[in-house]
């Protein structure tokens, strides 16, 4: 379980996150959604310790992450995998070396065993023949998949994905969404995804937190979101006529199921 308690974070005397509290569900795909500049990435970076919150605390499995020393945090961080918006692959390393890196750093496995693990995770993200390629030779979708492979190579408990679909075509976005959903279920990872992709909201989000101007405006499941009366949320999610129609259709389906 990841818990954010009264998080406040500001830059240049302007608060970007205003007193946000939420409990993210264990073993599920948790989504933080909101318009650009709503504070999603800052909240995520506070959660993983890349930013220090000005106020508030982050808990991992009941342990106060915010008050931990760098050394204590390292233990938790080894259980965290993260996919960055721009993939953040090491340019000077091949795909294989990128994924080997955490294994070299934190395991005592033999080279053969490490290579086996690398091939396993590359196979899992459907990238089999890219071992010797450099990130510059990969497409955006492939980079994201290598980023996911690197994030899961040490079998993390928590997977954070910052805008995994940004800059990708709709088809590749679906592949990435499906991959994140499958990995969450397969490895029983607690996944946190930052997104403003509505398909992700509907398809992979078990628990959704909606951010608006640095505040948590709404939270609930992807079924509850259809019936939500929150105007800001509805304006954000069902902005187009096409999506409004989709909402009507989904509401009818859900009501029939009940």
């Amino acid at each position: 379980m990841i818990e954010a308690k009264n998080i406040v974070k500001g830059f240049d005397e302007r608060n970007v996150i205003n007193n946000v509290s939420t409990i993210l569900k264990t073993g599920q795909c948790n989504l933080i959604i909101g318009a650009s500049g709503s504070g999603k990435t800052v909240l995520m970076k506070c959660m993983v310790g890349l930013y220090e919150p000005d106020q508030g605390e982050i808990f991992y499995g009941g342990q106060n992450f915010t008050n931990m020393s760098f050394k204590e945090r390292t233990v938790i961080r080894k259980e965290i995998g993260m996919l960055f918006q721009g993939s953040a692959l090491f340019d000077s390393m091949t795909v294989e070396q990128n994924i080997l890196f955490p294994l070299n750093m934190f395991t005592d496995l033999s080279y053969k065993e490490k290579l086996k693990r690398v091939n396993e995770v590359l196979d899992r993200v459907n990238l089999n023949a890219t071992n010797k390629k450099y990130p510059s030779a990969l497409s955006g979708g492939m980079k994201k998949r290598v980023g996911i492979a690197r994030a899961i190579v040490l079998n993390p408990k928590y997977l954070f994905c910052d805008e995994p679909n940004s800059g990708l075509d709709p088809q590749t976005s679906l592949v990435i969404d499906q991959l994140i959903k499958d990995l969450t279920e397969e490895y029983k990872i607690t996944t946190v995804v930052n997104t403003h992709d509505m398909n992700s909201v509907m398809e992979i989000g078990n628990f959704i937190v909606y951010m608006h101007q640095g505040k948590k405006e709404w939270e609930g499941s992807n079924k509850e979101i259809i019936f939500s009366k929150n105007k800001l949320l509805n304006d954000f999610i069902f902005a187009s006529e096409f999506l409004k129609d989709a909402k009507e259709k989904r509401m009818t389906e859900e009501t029939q199921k009940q």
Partner: protein
Amino acid sequence: MKLFSEIGGYCLMIKGMFSKPENKKVYWNELMHQCSEIGIGALGIVAIISVFMGAVSTIQTAYQLVSPFIPLSTIAQVVRDTVILEFAPTLVCIVLAGVIGGKIASELGNMRVSEQIDALEIMGINSKTFLIFPKIIAALLVIPILVIIAAVLGIMGGRTAGIMVGIISGYTFDHGLMEGFLPYNVFFALTKAYTFAFIIASISCFYGYNVKGGSLEIGKASTKAVVVICILILLADYLLASLLL
């Protein structure tokens, strides 16, 4: 105020890079990689500069020594001491500020902007220890060697130029090299080389590691790093000369 904030940030960076390596073998490989990057990457330019620096010193010294009472071997002495005391450590390190300092600052800046440094932190790796410490140690190991190579090549370049232009014979030059040689000068040159090596690596790491923004800021950080390194090298050169000579 900004200056104090930068000095404070620099001190914190130096303090933060001392932590136990997560895996000694990976750090050792990184150190070797940095030694090769800094050493081999700069060897060509250092060799070219040194040879011409020595050659020009010989010709200009000969041009200034017009009195028939001054023996020709003095040219070799002047070239030797100028190259060892000043040209090899200071001039070469100012060139290295551009070659190595600019490269380190832009490399780290790019890593910061593309979130590669954040990726290291998320993995539980102390990014300062992994990225900065090996670069500073590699610079401390390699730059003094480059300075020694520069001194040897400078003197050889001076000798070759002297013979080619017909200013001095090889025998007279070699004789002059041996006359009044002070080993302390080599110690002084190496002290300067170690000081400048630390300045080059640490300042460029500081500006590169703390880049905020995009590609424009990487360029700015790289330029600022080179300018600050050059100023600090000249300042340190003056301080060391007044303290040790």
